[in-house]
């Protein structure tokens, strides 16, 4: 599978909500008991 075909397959299967994950995220941590 060439790169263009592979990219097309991957972009077709990745959920739309994951395709829009921002590059910059921040992290928080909690102990919930």
């Amino acid at each position, binding site marked *: 599978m060439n790169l263009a075909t592979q990219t097309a397959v991957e972009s077709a*299967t*990745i*959920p*739309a*909500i*994951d395709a829009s*994950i*921002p590059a*910059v*995220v*921040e*992290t*928080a*941590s*909690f*102990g*919930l*008991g």
Partner: protein
Amino acid sequence: MIDGVIRTRVGYAGGQQSNPNYHHMGDHTETVQVDYDPRRITYNQLLDVFWKSHTPTSRSGPRQYMRAVFYHDERQRELAMASKVAVAQRTGKTINTEVVPLRTFTMAEDYHQKYMLKQNYALKAEMTSIYPRHQDFVDSTAVARLNGYAGGYGSQVQFDKEIDRLGLSDAGKQSLTEMVERRWDYSRQ
């Protein structure tokens, strides 16, 4: 479920023992870590959710189950401490929830991650076919949202907005829809 949260993971934090695990946690605490989009939700808003999610005036349990904000840097420490003071002033009581440095975070074992989703074999299978590598599965926002719905969270408005963006097949969408509608029907009774 909170808009702006990208993903979550569970693990062990706050202690000094090296290589903690579920059976040998040492001085660490079971911790949830949240990656969020700061353009959509602020750290202060997450703190608000945290304070409302437990009773900070009740006595703390063993360290494994400590209620705490684990701050990552000085900015988070200042905001967390200010929010704790505000809760103390609002309640007029001593706040037993801790604000402590994160130090380290160790991912919990795979079987603890996205636990609720993994109880639904059909939905889990759909997502593992997209993300066969477990770390990719854990990092997926779609998986995080599905785990939330499987755990009984999420509103109908959120569901309607994102059902078509979660990467599910028609059968998967049907299964998820039936799951959440059963819950909404029950909560209306």
